[in-house]
């Protein structure tokens, strides 16, 4: 038994699903902080409330973010978590690691922290869970000297994140991992020294499956796609049929644009009508593949519900090429952020700002033409603005 009795938490060691309680207990071997974390958590379970204070402002010299200050509101009862800050380590693109790298990360963490981690945080960071203020500089020195930097927090560019993409996926239309590496490097200053009106997140998915939830969880969502035709391997179509797939029912009938036909032998696609939703490709991966003229759709604005309800990102640029050195896309992103940075009120995300200002000022600032692809449908009311410039045309 640990330092505290934890009957309720113990209950959660039962059952087949891996138990976070077991992890907490394992960590007690590394650090007494984990004991107090367990104890305080048990108390939360008993009383149905948390015992943490509002986030603190702690960090490392020269950076304005990357560490979340956390203090127990009952430190006398649980002194081990009086300070219990988290350190956000910038994960690798695609969350790829070697055993060696992870062990190094563990070694340092055991030395200075609770022995607990989140692999990974929702934004993408490798989160080290629980340390004290005095250890922060050491932790940073140890990691950074070994090539690992802090992720982000505060009103800053947040740690960009992406799906596995070309690393292990046949549908990746863009190199999500490389681009994420590029953009992370590009925005180092903006990540580490918060100077934006509020947080700004970039997530990059290789295709419309959106395996990194870019469209729902990033202010700037990049989603790979193609402009030309779906590649079809008719022999494989036949194979699927032979194996008993109901191609008509599972594929053709579910195509949202009704642009496919199947005559029992071959699949034909009217690519002009295809909206590249990925359904047919995803369900017939051997037979159908994205086209070859690849690039990405850029969307903006997703966020969680506070203040005026959740937003999904809105299409801004229907198609843009995404080849290294990523000049055009980087410029566009900068223009988008600059407009937001110059215009937003404090704590106003870009999606909220667009709701206030409309799309036009952003389109103009980033030099993006209005196109029907940006809307599900045109406006309904007969109220709309005219600029003097519209009259010249």
């Amino acid at each position, binding site marked *: 038994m640990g330092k505290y009795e934890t009957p309720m938490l113990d209950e959660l060691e039962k059952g087949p699903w891996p138990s976070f309680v077991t992890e907490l207990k394992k960590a007690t071997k590394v650090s007494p902080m984990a004991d107090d974390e367990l104890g305080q958590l048990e108390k939360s379970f008993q009383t149905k409330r948390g015992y943490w204070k509002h986030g603190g*402002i*702690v960090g490392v010299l020269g950076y*304005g973010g990357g560490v979340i200050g956390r203090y127990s509101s009952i430190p006398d009862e649980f002194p081990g978590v009086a300070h219990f800050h988290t350190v956000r380590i910038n994960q690798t693109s695609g969350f790829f690691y070697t055993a060696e790298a992870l062990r190094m990360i563990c070694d340092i963490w055991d030395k200075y922290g609770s022995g607990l981690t989140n692999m990974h945080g929702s934004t993408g960071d490798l989160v080290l869970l629980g340390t004290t203020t005095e250890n922060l500089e050491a932790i940073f020195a140890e990691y950074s000297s070994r090539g690992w930097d802090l992720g982000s927090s505060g009103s800053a560019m947040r740690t960009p994140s992406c799906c596995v993409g070309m690393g292990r996926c046949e549908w990746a239309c863009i190199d999500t991992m490389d681009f994420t590496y590029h953009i992370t490097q590009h925005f180092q*200053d903006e990540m580490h*020294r918060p100077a934006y*009106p509020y947080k700004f997140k970039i997530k990059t998915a290789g295709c419309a499956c959106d395996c990194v939830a870019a469209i729902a969880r990033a202010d700037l969502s990049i989603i790979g796609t193609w402009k030309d035709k779906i590649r079809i391997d008719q022999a494989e179509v036949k194979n699927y049929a032979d194996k008993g797939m109901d191609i008509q029912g599972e594929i053709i009938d579910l195509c949202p644009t009704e642009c496919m036909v199947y005559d029992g032998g071959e699949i034909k696609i009217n690519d002009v009508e295809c909206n590249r939703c990925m359904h047919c490709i995803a369900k017939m991966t051997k037979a159908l593949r994205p086209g070859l003229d690849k690039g990405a759709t850029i969307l903006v604005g997703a966020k969680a519900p506070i203040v005026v309800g959740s937003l999904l990102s809105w299409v801004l640029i229907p198609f843009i090429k995404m080849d290294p050195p990523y000049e055009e896309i980087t410029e566009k992103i900068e223009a988008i952020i600059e407009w937001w940075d110059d215009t937003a009120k404090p704590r106003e995300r870009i999606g909220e700002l667009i709701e206030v200002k409309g799309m036009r000022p952003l389109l103009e600032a980033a030099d993006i033409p209005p196109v029907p692809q940006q809307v599900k449908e045109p406006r309904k009311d007969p109220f709309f603005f005219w600029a003097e410039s519209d009259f010249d045309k």
Partner: protein
Amino acid sequence: MATLDVEGKSYEVDEEGYLMDWQEWTEGVAGAMAKEDGLDLSAEHWNVIKFLRSYFEKYQIAPMIKILTKELAKEYGKEKGNTKYLYELYPAGPAKQACRYAGLPKPTGCV
């Protein structure tokens, strides 16, 4: 509750050293906080603190960093209107150091 003692008066501060009541602030408070951090407050440091203080008194909110840097650029020259300069002055960052020295309420949320 932790306290900060300045010239015989004792000020309540939170675990991170932020004043518990921004109204109690005096220049001495800033000096004492800086001293704890081993920082000598130059005129340039005071420029920042005074702007923060006056902005807060006017609007009751801390300025966004970009407002602060714009102000610095305007008043003291373009080369001072950026975060680099701010972090040179306040290595722990404007929120953690400058706002604290200026006695502003601890920034919340958004971490």
